[in-house]
């Protein structure tokens, strides 16, 4: 096993491109992840999330560029990389005809655990995912959430430094989703680096330190993180003609967006720490009546949309 110090990159991806025939699934993707980071992969269907995960899981060979896990190239040193990762595909992939214990035992043996270690591993991971009392149940008798937990427990067989989880929250009810998020938080506290994809952005927000937005196989400019800027919604009595001109003179205003409709509602993005009062003063000085203003909390979905828009522009 490769050891990682704090701050060292567990994952390094450089100008990674993947091509299927004439379709470019990934295009010049570059990023790196330090140890212990939980990263959410977000993007519309076909954005390249699963492709990126499959490259990191040694299941796809890139057309160009490179990807490394723990300093090991995913193509040239695939065997070593497999010992470093736990991969949960988006379709689970569980043997229905095995008992939970047998399933974990099978993968523990596949990861090279000795017979004496296998029992200890099974007890530990089943306790972790809360399935100790279902140890002798056949997989086909477990609920979807339980199967997913079991599959997750399987990914821990090699004590991986990197967990790659493709849509682990899909199809789960809110209770099972909550359990899964708790598990991810637990993994983060144990120093695991996690890459997780999901369309449930509100859930990702709860566990991720960083979000990577993919669109059309490319990384969209990484948007500002929550807390780095402040958003305000502001309504003027009349639609202003020169709002941009006025606010350009005010320090700390990063962007201004006039909402669709009568043109009286505006969204302002200010640097964190800057207050709204200089904005209001500037508007009043130019004879504009401000009817209402309020801070707005921007969700991940909105940030994603904004990042896409900014990327396009």
């Amino acid at each position, binding site marked *: 096993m490769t050891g990682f110090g704090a701050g060292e990159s567990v994952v390094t991806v450089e100008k990674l491109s993947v091509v299927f025939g004439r379709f470019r699934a990934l295009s010049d993707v570059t990023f790196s992840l330090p140890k212990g980071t939980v990263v959410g992969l977000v993007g519309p269907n076909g954005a390249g999330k699963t492709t990126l995960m499959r490259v990191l899981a040694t299941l796809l060979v890139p057309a160009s560029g490179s990807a490394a896990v723990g300093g090991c190239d995913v193509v040239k040193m695939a065997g070593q990389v497999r010992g470093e990762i736990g991969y949960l*595909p988006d379709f*689970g992939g569980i043997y229905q005809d*095995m008992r939970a214990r047998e399933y974990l035992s*099978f993968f523990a043996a596949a*990861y090279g655990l000795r017979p004496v270690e296998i029992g200890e591993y099974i007890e530990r991971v089943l306790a972790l995912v809360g399935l100790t009392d279902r140890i002798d149940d056949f997989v086909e008798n477990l609920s979807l959430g339980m199967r997913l937990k079991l*599959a997750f427990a399987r990914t821990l067989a*090699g004590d991986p430094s990197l967990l790659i989880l493709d849509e682990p929250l899909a199809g789960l009810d809110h209770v099972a989703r909550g359990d899964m998020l708790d598990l991810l938080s637990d993994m983060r506290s144990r120093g695991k680096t996690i890459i997780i994809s999901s369309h449930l952005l509100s859930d990702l927000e709860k566990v991720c330190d960083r979000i990577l937005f993919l669109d059309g196989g490319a990384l969209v400019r990484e948007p500002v993180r929550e807390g780095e800027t402040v958003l305000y919604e502001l309504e003027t009595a009349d639609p202003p003609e020169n709002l941009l001109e006025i606010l350009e003179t005010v320090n700390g205003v990063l962007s201004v967006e006039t909402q669709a409709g009568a043109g009286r509602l505006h969204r302002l993005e200010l640097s964190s720490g800057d207050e709204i009062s200089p904005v209001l003063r500037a508007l009043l000085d130019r004879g504009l009546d401000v009817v209402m203003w309020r801070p707005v909390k921007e969700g991940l979905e909105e940030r994603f949309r904004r990042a896409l828009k900014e990327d396009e522009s």
Partner: protein
Amino acid sequence: MIGAGLWRNPILSREIDHRMRDNRTYFIPVVYISLLGLVTLGIYLTMGTLAAGGPSNFIQGWEIGQFIFKAVTFTQMGLILMLVPSVSAGAITSERDKGTLVPLLVTPMKRSRITIGKLLAPVLYVLLLLSTSLPFAALSFGFGGTDLKMLAVAYGCMVSTTLYVASLGLLVSTVMKRTVPAVLLAYGLVAALDIGSVIAEVIVHVAFKDLDAIFFLYLNPFAPLVFAGEEYLANEVSAHWWITPVIQMILGAFFLFIAHLRIRNMRS
């Protein structure tokens, strides 16, 4: 040590566990033994009836034994050729169908263990079936219809054919994407070996009347049983029984090598 290593092969252990949980695993030996029993009984009763026809129809015990032996070995060879492709051709495709191939491929387990496990699982099952047929062979032996050498030759040829067809099936399983087409292709190839080899031989003889070669027949899994029988009866020996298993071993090793390369380079 090799045996212990094999037994610790998780793929092989899982395949055996999986097979032992399947009701067909118990049903097939019952059908297998019943069929062999019916064949044996049929021959015994037929020859008994013929012998009762009069002094001119006198049949010696060793002749009954020999008929039983031939019928049992030919029936078994046919059953092997029907059973092994269906099991081995689904070795990899069934994992793909169930979505369990990817979790397997991302483990650091050596790919050679996957190859060996997937090859040996059907082979061990057929060995189990072959062992259940030993009482019928013993019956033939008791009648004086065969000897230990002939028994070893017949069972050796059946094991060789099993390994050969299992390698072929495994290769097909690494090439095809889905189980049903893979099994159909494997059956097609086995049928080509059985029937195609005979047809090819006939064509060669018709086309080149002077040519006395029987190369194509050596590819037929039933051929060594016929040739070994000729040797046993000390009739004119037209060919050597051992050539077929040698060809099978060479081709089987080649198929296995290609299958392993495909499994080794398998991504998703």
